[in-house]
């Protein structure tokens, strides 16, 4: 019996460790619209293409909120540098939208998209 408990504990410990290290896809799964990063990226892309700056600002705020909600959940499974890169791109994206610089905003948004995809690899 003691042996069973011992081995179960070891297996549980290993399983929890493996989940924490590889659980990005599960942990980044949105619980609602408020933390759905890919949806807000797509919506923001459409707004930028249509030069709809008020809408872009709203989607930017939603994207920023979603990202900050996801961050604590995925921080154990991803690279810190990738997360820092998203933070920086997000800050630059905000300024570009306020300055209504479509090209710059599109660059920053596509960078965020690439970093988001990199997080899962």
């Amino acid at each position, binding site marked *: 019996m003691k042996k069973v408990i011992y081995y179960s504990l070891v297996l549980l410990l290993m399983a929890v460790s493996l989940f924490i290290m590889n659980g990005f896809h599960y942990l980044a799964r949105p619980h609602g619209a408020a933390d759905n990063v890919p949806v807000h990226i797509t919506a923001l892309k459409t707004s930028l293409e249509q030069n709809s700056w008020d809408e872009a600002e709203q989607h930017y705020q939603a994207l920023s909120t979603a990202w900050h909600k996801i961050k604590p959940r995925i921080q154990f499974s991803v690279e810190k*540098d990738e997360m820092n890169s998203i933070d920086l791109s997000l800050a630059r994206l905000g300024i570009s939208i306020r300055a209504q610089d479509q090209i710059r905003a599109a660059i920053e948004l596509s960078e965020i998209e690439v970093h988001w995809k990199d997080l899962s690899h």
Partner: protein
Amino acid sequence: MNEALVVLGRSLIAFSTLLVFTRMLGKQQLSQLTYFDYILGITIGSIASSLSVDLSSRAWPHWVALFTWFAIVALLQWSSIRWKTADRFFSGQPVIVIMKGKIMEQNMKTIHYTISDLLEHLRNKDVFDISKVEFAVLETNGNLSVLLKPEYQPATLKDLQIKPSPGGISTEVIYSGVVVEANLHKAGVNLQWLQKQLQEQGISHPEEVFLATYNRDSGVLSIDKYQDK
């Protein structure tokens, strides 16, 4: 991102992984490690520390590296146990450095073992005169095994024809002021007996005792109190 929290989480993963892996690798003592085992240990430790604090990369690749090194070491251990040739290849072979009182210079040269190393190892074995040595073998873990010439070997009780008194192993019956009742039963005595023994030595309570051991074979109860006079 709370860096300290992430480091804490990753450190717990590294610690538990190392604990499990090292337990699985067995109970080889540090003194029994070969030079190669030692290097493997350092490498595994270094990977574990990267897993713990290197936040510029994900924890998973570090964990995979840790697992790979553990698997290699386990494979080496397994093959060394199964095949003598593999054991000889991975761990090396003991080398005779003194044979019949003569220093084997060629053997020493092959393993880069200097005369100072030999003299130092002999001194560690309480041998200060090399002429007393019949055989000396450098083991794979770096220890020197020494066989003295018959005339310098210490006399045993058998040589002196003295009948040895029973030795036996003593067990702890009081540990940090607490009576270990399980050991009392194993030693074939009881609490009343212990209390009587303590009273005879002027101790009113087991809490005054730091360590008390009892040797069943010799019947000796050894007591060390917290207050040493």
